[in-house]
């Protein structure tokens, strides 16, 4: 099963939002359903896919940054906005300010790799506003050779998070004060959380040179 290519989730760059192979109702019961009692209460049917999001905040963002927002959806109560890379810092600054909702806490920043897409990385930001008790997800799509503007200036906590993304995915940041590996050693080659980095793969040369062992396995 492992080498079978997974279909990346929809909602990104221009791919058709096709459902993957086991599409006949993923949450519904699989095949041996026929014998089950018909009146049995099954789990309530929640939305199966993200829905379009509308809110005053989104209207304001669209007014302030025309053309920068490409996809605003909500799934399981968490709105998610896809941004143009160029608008990222502006949008973040606005969201952090009081009139933008006061999203002063960057709880998380991470990346997801979709090797088949034209822009293979999604950089994900999760923001939290104490004033509104509200969360928001921002997404920026970047290609392999593109640099992402760093948000360390706005949220110092992004320092380590962006270093981790650089370490694990090889995403380059622009304006990061100290972009180097954080979990893996400096001399390591490869970025393990990329999809084309096999789970058993390792930097054999580094391991032999530094640990004096043939293999970590």
């Amino acid at each position, binding site marked *: 099963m492992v080498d079978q290519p997974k279909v990346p*989730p929809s909602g990104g760059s221009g791919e058709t939002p096709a459902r993957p192979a086991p599409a006949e109702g993923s949450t519904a019961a*699989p095949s041996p359903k026929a014998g089950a009692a018909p009146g049995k209460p099954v*789990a309530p049917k929640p939305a199966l896919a993200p829905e379009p999001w509308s809110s005053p905040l989104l209207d304001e963002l669209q007014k302030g940054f025309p053309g920068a927002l490409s996809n605003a959806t909500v*799934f399981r109560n968490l709105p998610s906005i896809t941004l143009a890379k160029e608008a990222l810092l502006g949008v973040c600054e606005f969201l952090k300010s009081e009139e933008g909702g006061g999203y002063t806490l960057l709880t998380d920043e*991470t990346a997801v790799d979709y090797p088949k897409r034209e822009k293979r990385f999604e950089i994900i930001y*999760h923001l939290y506003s*104490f004033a509104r*008790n509200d969360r928001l997800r921002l997404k920026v799509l970047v290609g392999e050779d593109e640099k992402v503007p760093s948000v360390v200036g706005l949220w110092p906590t992004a320092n380590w998070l962006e270093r981790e993304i650089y370490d694990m995915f090889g995403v380059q940041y622009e304006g990061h004060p100290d972009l180097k590996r954080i979990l893996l050693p400096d001399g390591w080659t490869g970025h*393990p959380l990329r999809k084309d980095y096999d*789970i058993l793969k390792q930097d054999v040369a580094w391991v032999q040179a530094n640990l004096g062992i043939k293999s970590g396995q």
Partner: protein
Amino acid sequence: MPVTLERIPGHEERVILSMGPQHPSTHGVLRLVLELEGETVVRALVDIGYLHTGFEKSFESLTYAQGITLTDRMDYLAPLSNNLGFCLAIEKLLGLEIPRRAQWIRVLLTELTRIQSHLVWLGTHALELGAMSVFLYCFREREDILRIFELVSGQRMMTSYFRVGGLALEPPLHWLRRVEKFVGEFPRRLAEYETLLTKNPIWLRRTVGVGQISAPDAIALGLSGPSLRASGVKWDIRKAEPYSSYDQFDFHIPTRPEGDVYARYLVRLDEMRESLKIVRQAMAGLPDGPINADAPHIVLPDRESMKTSIEALIYHFKLVTEGFHPPVGEVYQTIESPRGELGFYIVSDGSPKPWRCHVRAPSFANLQALTKIAEGRLIADVVACIASLDTVLGEIDR
């Protein structure tokens, strides 16, 4: 290969000191590089990654149900909190509602986990500042809680007790008696620790005014949990975004305005009392009913029904060999772990294995504040600062 600090020209007299990774007070394998002028820390550099095991990569090659066992090992002092966060994230993805009894048992056990985790923190914190006896007492009480975990799940630490859709198994008969015994005794024990520390002049000299951080700085650095509340920010995810029926429990959020090591100490002590309150309420009102959601395509059937029902047998086979298929989508679920905001970001492509599972580890963000709170302090204070942030390297290095 090891990370080091560059010397600043003109300050050749300063000593560059490597502290760790095998230093007892760095809680696991944390390494600090300190630049010292006399005994004062001028610059501090945190070097992590010694415990990197690639959890996030492993998640992608395991089914959702198998992934639970990884979460135990991330924050190994609070395995049940991690189980809970992971299960809630998947349940959110599935849109699965779980029975009240399971929710209440989850609350009860995660609050015991919080007490247990805080006990390890208190014991080691005190030990590092020279109060040996507190360590022994804390580990004695912690053992009581671990025995309860063992009774319920069969494991002291790597419990994997919460499963997608409910619990792994029904707790044994009379297990609440053990909890009751602990809850009855613990307030007296807590008072005992307090007599040893809270007004102890040496303890006060080592902690009051040490490692201060203001609320805006703490937020900017992404601090959460007790470390943030000790800087005066009244924010607890159990109250702000209640999960697992926390909204039905009555408890306070302890905060302190000072933001120093002592404040973090007091906040955690108060938190143990509040957790105890929640445990009492959960025990008193524990509902009856099933412990698993009625979702045969997600929850494993019980062994008895497999002997008589062909559907149960087929579901079991499907779940064990293949796993369940959640809808395509992505969720972010947070819980208040003993260390702060623990978040699971799961991207599903509809297959039985997550496309991506990222963990927002509270310790990772909290540890980043160490440089800020330790610089300019004495080297002995660094030890107090590390302990007061209560980090677990397992979830930092993941």
